[in-house]
């Protein structure tokens, strides 16, 4: 029988000299899926296999690498687990773990290893597998304790999480090993030359029975056969003959005995080439003809993975195009995609489309689940936007991250929603261009460029959305439209400030600015007189020339220490004298305990955000408001807020300047007359709301991106009446079923209502 694994081919290269590396590279060039090396640490004629595999990983790009098989008695299982994860991470998910119980006990003992009886060796290997799997299961919170006959772990920290699910394959012949394999492993590796006729089939039977007894599907176990042979003109025996004869010899092994991987044992480049060219493709074709259905190509989800599925998600109905990259709770990538920067998540499935058409398919899939939450995620830095959720569907646009110059003369650039602003800045820098984004390069394009984009170049160059010239988006009904000043102009109006309510933007076209090097300042102030300091900041920041935009961050004063404030400011000038001149008034606001001023590309400032995976936990609690100016009353109120202990992060972002030049009706971002965007974050929602609500007399609307409050009034704070009326009407037109509701939901205006 065949177990339904896609057919793969590997090589088995002797680990000696330079040739081993050359043959590994050749294997990759020839299209093999896998290169393997035997491991005999007691054999000085061979390379150390681990070192060789790591080296080869550095010299190849695509091919998977494995031992055939690793000598576990001479390798410490816990260290082996971490080393395996490392090699997998470094190689981009190309390392597979093939283990053996050990055989040459004299040699193992001579090296300082412990001699075991064959039965003991199987038990020791079984323990090693548990340890390796336990350590690689980085999602488990508790340290790993293991009290075995052969190995003991006394609370080792788990991790790291490998790049891909590292399969564990075993080299096995005898019944005990085969039974272990059936219980615990993902693949069987065996050498054809060592098998007597019928032994392979008998081995499969033992494995299948053991797997079934352990509640596993035997199909989870890949069957891998090491083969050797010679190409000759005339058929002389098994794998001794022309390529057609090889195909004839191998075909029944696939169709009747379920071999999923053939590993060719040869150090002869010509043989490797001939097999790759004349046998592998012909065998694939012959297998497809012989089997009732073609072998699948996607990933195979084991019973353990399927057990973690959530209710209500039609996992088996995921469109084929999306299935391969979709991530569900049991998948190894889940911990990488479940959460956001500030928010923990536990979605039922994450779909990762690679094109606009796939976005439409993902949306159609999501719409078949009207009762589940749906999140649209670009960079995962949403605060107001619930782009991850619990048990629902996430459409993750991370793969749509291109940055492409469309026209150099007009500085027209197309950017995918999944790009991060640091990437955008880095791509524009060589042209001497920049696009004002926000204060953090890790933020994604999709969320920010549909809401506003209050950034460090804002007072000179306006909001990010002010540079938007066109978008392509997928609407609720699945159609793909373009919107610009001349096409679907009302939609284009809505997208610039309330885009999340209208569809999924799949590409943005911007006209970017010429920006050379900039002055970048980080100034630390002693702000003991917090209120006075904030007032002075308000005056200086709003009266500064437009080339200067400053943001201020404060936290609660630490016990026994004066309050401090951190200013982050940018001057759109590469001239040190200008930069210093513009910063002088800020420097005079209060005593400074720290100052750093550099002239650097905008891209360097954005580049300071690290490339880390999101590991957010819990829910952010954040409130947001616009104020026209920092009045003495507001400054006093802010000081009280900071002393309340309720707020751990308080920020003022200066707007005005070019932002205010734009007509409030020109985009759905209407609060053009604001002087500052204010943000406060806390840990206690009720207490923060109570304090913040009490400040409302100072506020004049809010910037939705920093608001987590979901009371309906907030929508009216974000959008003044005229704007909101128009948005509701358009919502009724473009998204009457209210599909897009994860971020400041605007209720669609239905026919019967007064607008």
């Amino acid at each position, binding site marked *: 029988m065949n177990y339904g694994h896609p057919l793969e081919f590997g090589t088995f290269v002797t680990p000696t000299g330079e040739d081993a590396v050359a043959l590994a590279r050749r294997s990759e060039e020839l299209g093999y899926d896998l290169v393997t090396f035997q491991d005999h640490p007691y054999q000085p004629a061979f390379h150390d296999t681990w070192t060789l595999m790591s080296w080869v990983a550095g010299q190849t790009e695509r091919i998977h690498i494995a031992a055939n098989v690793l000598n576990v008695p001479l390798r410490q299982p816990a260290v082996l687990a971490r080393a395996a994860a490392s090699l997998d991470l*470094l190689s981009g998910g190309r390392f597979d773990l093939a283990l053996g119980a050990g055989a040459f006990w004299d040699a193992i003992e001579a090296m300082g290893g412990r001699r075991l009886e064959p039965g003991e060796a199987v038990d020791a290997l079984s323990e090693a597998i548990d340890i390796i799997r336990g350590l690689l299961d980085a999602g488990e919170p508790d340290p790993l304790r293991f009290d075995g006959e052969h190995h003991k772990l006394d609370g080792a920290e788990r991790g790291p999480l490998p790049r891909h699910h590292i399969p564990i394959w075993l080299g096995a012949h005898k019944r005990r090993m085969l039974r272990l394999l059936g219980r615990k492993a993902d693949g069987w590796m065996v050498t054809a030359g060592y098998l007597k006729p019928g032994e392979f089939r008998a081995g499969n039977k033992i494995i299948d029975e053991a797997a079934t007894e352990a509640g596993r599907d035997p199909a989870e176990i890949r069957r891998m056969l090491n083969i050797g042979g010679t190409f000759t003109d005339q058929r002389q025996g098994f794998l001794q003959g022309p390529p057609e004869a090889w195909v004839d010899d191998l075909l029944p092994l696939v169709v009747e005995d379920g071999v999923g991987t053939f590993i060719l044992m040869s150090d002869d480049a010509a043989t490797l080439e001939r097999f790759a060219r004349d046998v592998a493709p012909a065998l694939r074709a012959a297998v497809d003809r012989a089997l009732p259905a073609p072998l699948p190509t996607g990933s195979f989800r084991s019973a353990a993975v399927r057990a973690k599925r959530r209710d209500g998600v039609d996992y088996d109905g995921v469109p084929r195009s999306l299935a391969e990259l979709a991530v569900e709770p049991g998948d190894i990538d889940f911990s990488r995609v479940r959460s956001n920067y500030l928010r923990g998540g536990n979605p039922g499935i994450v779909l990762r489309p690679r094109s606009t058409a796939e976005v439409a398919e993902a949306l159609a899939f999501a719409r078949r689940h009207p009762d589940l939450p749906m999140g649209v995620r670009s960079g995962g830095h949403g605060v107001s936007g619930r782009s991850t959720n619990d048990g629902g569907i996430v459409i993750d646009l991370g793969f749509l991250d291109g940055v492409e110059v469309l026209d150099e003369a007009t500085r027209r650039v197309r950017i995918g929603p999944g790009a991060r602003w640091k990437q955008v800045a880095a791509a524009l820098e060589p042209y001497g261009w920049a696009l004002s984004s926000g204060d953090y390069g890790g933020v994604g394009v999709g969320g920010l460029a549909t809401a506003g984009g209050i950034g460090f170049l804002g007072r000179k160059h306006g909001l990010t959305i002010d540079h938007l010239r066109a978008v392509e988006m997928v609407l609720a009904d699945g159609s793909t439209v373009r919107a610009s000043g001349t096409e679907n102009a009302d939609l284009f109006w809505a997208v610039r400030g309330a885009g999340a309510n209208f569809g999924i933007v799949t590409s943005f076209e911007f006209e970017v600015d010429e920006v050379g090097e900039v002055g970048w300042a980080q100034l630390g102030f002693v702000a003991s007189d917090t209120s006075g300091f904030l007032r002075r900041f308000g005056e200086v920041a709003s009266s500064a020339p437009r080339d200067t935009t400053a943001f201020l961050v404060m936290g609660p004063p630490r016990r026994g220490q004066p309050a401090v404030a951190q200013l982050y400011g940018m001057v759109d000038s590469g001239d040190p004298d200008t930069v210093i001149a513009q910063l002088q008034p800020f420097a005079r606001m209060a005593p400074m305990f720290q100052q750093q001023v550099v002239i650097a590309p905008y891209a360097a400032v954005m580049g300071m955000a690290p490339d880390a995976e999101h590991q957010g936990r819990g829910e952010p609690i954040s409130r947001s408001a616009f104020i026209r100016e920092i009045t003495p009353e507001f400054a006093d109120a802010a000081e009280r807020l900071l002393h309340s202990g309720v707020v751990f992060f308080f920020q003022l972002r200066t707007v005005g300047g070019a932002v205010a030049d734009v007509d409030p009706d020109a985009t759905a971002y209407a609060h053009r007359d604001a002087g500052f965007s204010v943000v406060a974050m806390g840990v206690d929602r009720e207490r923060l709301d109570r304090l913040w609500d009490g400040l409302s007399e100072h506020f004049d609307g809010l910037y939705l991106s920093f608001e987590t409050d979901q009371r309906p009034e907030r929508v009216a704070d974000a959008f003044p009446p005229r704007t909101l009326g128009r948005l509701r009407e358009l919502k009724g037109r473009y998204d009457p079923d209210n599909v897009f509701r994860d971020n400041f939901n605007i209720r669609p205006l239905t026919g019967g209502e007064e607008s």
Partner: protein
Amino acid sequence: MTDTDYGHDLLFGTFVTPVNQPATQAVDLAVVSDRAGLDLVTFQDHPYQPRFHDTWTLMSYAASRTSQIHVSGNVLNLPLRQPAVLARSAASLDVLSGGRLELGIGAGGFWDAIAAMGGRRLSPGQAVEALEEAITVIREVWAADRPGPVRVDGKYYRVHGAKRGPKPPHDIGIWVGAYKPRMLRLIGRVADGWLPSLAYLPGGPADLAELNRHIDGAAAGAGRDPAQVRRLLNVGGQFAPTGRAFLDGPAEQWAEDLAGLTLEYGISGFVLATDDPYTIELFAAEVAPATRELVAAERGATAPVGVRPA
């Protein structure tokens, strides 16, 4: 040359944090160090720390992605690495890299974490003995030309009848990280280098004199020239427009600070702890040549160089 300058050529290197997220950050910094023309890139080894790469894997991979620079652990955790296997792995990596491996090694320190990983818990005294045995095993395995198999019947490691080889293509330096007299004496007897961190010296650079004396005394006692032990030092610092403190100032000041360490305490390897590409480039482009010049000028003025570099 002053009394405690052992006359070695100077080496400059980096001490890069082996973080595994982003996965290739440490490798990228090794590549930066290599392109900048540094002599050495090193990584700490804490196999019980899941936020770090496995250092052996990282070293092998990083060596594979670089072309001139030598790689070393800083320092390898012996208790979790089997010495005979380590010896062959080291030889292998030296072969693959064309002689670019150095073996920084330590006796182990965090015994709870080592035991948690299934390693054997040793007392500090036992750990020193175990390290000495391991060094014997490693040297025996590398001594491919000697007759008969390896026979080391140690208290901690018993390697009995293992084949010798492969022979590393270059003389791999065995560099030991240590601070206590017993370890320092071991270094004097059997190691090729000493690799402490300046930050761990409570009295700062001045402590080096006393620590050197332990090594020198033990070397002489074992009939070795103290100059057979290279003195390396992990240092940290920052570049600033004006001099503020030791290794906190402009590149010229760094060069003076480091040259002082060479001329006064015989330090001939400077390993800078940094994960910043710009700092690495500045260290290579400005500090290394200036330090070499200062040292050469001073050595030329005082005495001819009389010892072979280790």
